[in-house]
């Protein structure tokens, strides 16, 4: 029988020397310049980190290129961040510029630290997933081309701003708590392939999958299938996830929704959910210009209105969502008003508001 359950390699083997030696002894850090961090240890050692962007969907060749750089400057070690960015760590200050040069040579941008925009958490999209209501890598490329200056530090922001994308409501990457979330959405009721239903799907699972109870047993007992109450369907696609006989993708209906103001860190304010500001923008490959311009606008309005060190959500909650809609010029529509299970807590139960 094959070897099983050996687990991942021991991380200890993977650590650069300066890291292994100063493990748990770090004292403070400094931002040297965009993409470059300096960490100082209690032992007096210093570690310099150079971070760079990556498209995440990469060839083995690119990873080998990264290995080459690591071999040359970082005793054969490097790492990735939780947002897909390669990081090169060296105790030697003089290595910084050569590392940067090497990174740029293989076409990656140095940056992603400090008060700007880091890499986008994202998902598979049309590259690999059956459920995608929009693409992932393509949209990310289009957005990051626009946000490039905020990544490389040419432009800065009041505080870190995270953009994430999920190609359907499953929200792989859990982008429900991010400053700007780009979400693929369906807007049409699934169709039902009654004929293949029982072969492809478990009926009880399919029924139970619907958040609004829109799916019922087919009224005709001879038809072993289900029906959908169109009025109750909000196109979440969860039925399709469990039941291939209920395709929901639709070339004209699929598109993107924009959520704003989430955060994860506990700094100053507790973590917050991102909230719907634009319910639907049609898919417009290859560059999704409507999406990128909406995001740019929000970033710029944030940049010029927030206080220092205020995340997007903190800024909006301070000035009020009515002010956010006014400042960005985004129209407020019925979809912005919650009508799902916790809707009541979002209704404004006070006379306090701005005009």
């Amino acid at each position, binding site marked *: 029988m094959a070897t099983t359950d050996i687990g991942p390699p021991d991380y200890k083997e993977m650590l650069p020397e300066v890291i292994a030696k100063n493990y748990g002894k770090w004292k403070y850090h400094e931002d040297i310049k965009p993409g470059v961090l300096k960490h100082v240890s209690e032992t007096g050692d210093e570690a310099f980190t150079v971070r760079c962007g990556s498209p995440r969907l990469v060839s083995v060749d690119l990873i080998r290129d990264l290995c080459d750089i690591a071999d040359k400057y970082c005793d054969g070690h490097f790492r990735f961040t939780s947002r897909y960015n390669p990081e090169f760590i060296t105790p030697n200050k003089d290595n910084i510029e050569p590392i940067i040069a090497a990174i740029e040579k293989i076409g990656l941008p140095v940056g992603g630290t400090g008060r700007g925009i880091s890499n986008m958490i994202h998902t598979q999209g049309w590259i690999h997933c059956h459920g995608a209501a929009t693409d992932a890598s393509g949209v990310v490329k289009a957005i990051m081309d626009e946000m490039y200056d905020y990544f490389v530090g040419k432009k800065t922001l009041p505080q870190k701003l995270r953009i994430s994308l999920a190609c359907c409501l499953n929200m792989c990457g859990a982008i429900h708590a991010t400053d700007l979330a780009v979400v693929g959405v369906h807007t049409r009721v699934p169709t039902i392939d009654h004929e*293949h239903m*029982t*072969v*492809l*799907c*478990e*009926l*009880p*699972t399919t029924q139970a999958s619907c958040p609004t109870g829109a799916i019922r047993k087919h009224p005709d007992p001879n038809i072993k299938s289900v029906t959908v109450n169109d009025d109750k369907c909000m196109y979440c696609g969860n039925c399709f*996830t*469990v*039941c*291939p006989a209920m395709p929901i993708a639709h070339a004209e209906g699929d598109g993107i929704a924009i959520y704003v103001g989430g955060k994860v860190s506990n700094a100053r304010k507790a973590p917050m959910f991102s909230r719907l500001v634009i319910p639907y923008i049609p898919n417009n490959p290859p560059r999704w210009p409507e999406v990128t311009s909406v995001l740019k606008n929000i970033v710029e309005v944030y940049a010029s209105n927030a206080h220092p060190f205020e995340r997007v959500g903190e800024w909006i909650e301070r000035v009020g969502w009515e002010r956010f809609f006014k400042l960005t010029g985004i129209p407020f529509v019925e979809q912005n008003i919650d009508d799902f299970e916790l809707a009541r807590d979002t209704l404004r139960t006070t006379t306090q508001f701005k005009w």
Partner: protein
Amino acid sequence: MPKGILAGVEFEIDEDGFIQEPEKWSEAVAEDLAKDESSITPMPPDQWRLVNYIRDYYLQFGVAPPVRMLCKKNDFDLKYVYEMFPKGPAAGACKVAGLPKPTGCV
């Protein structure tokens, strides 16, 4: 949809080997399916016990049984289930039992 011959009968079979005409399932079909899935063919009693349990459960409730229940009710350790059906209860045992391809739990 690819075709295959199981127990001498032509079957529609999907890419993963799941039969698409469950009404044509039989013990002989199961044995044929088991050739790719069970650790021993013809299937010994424990394998059959599992397959029958899964099939009965499915016919009664319309869903594959939860893994916990499958182990508990048959007094099988999950590792043992993987020994019997190396691809596990979903990709292995359910396939032999003629169920729709699990998207959910097992």
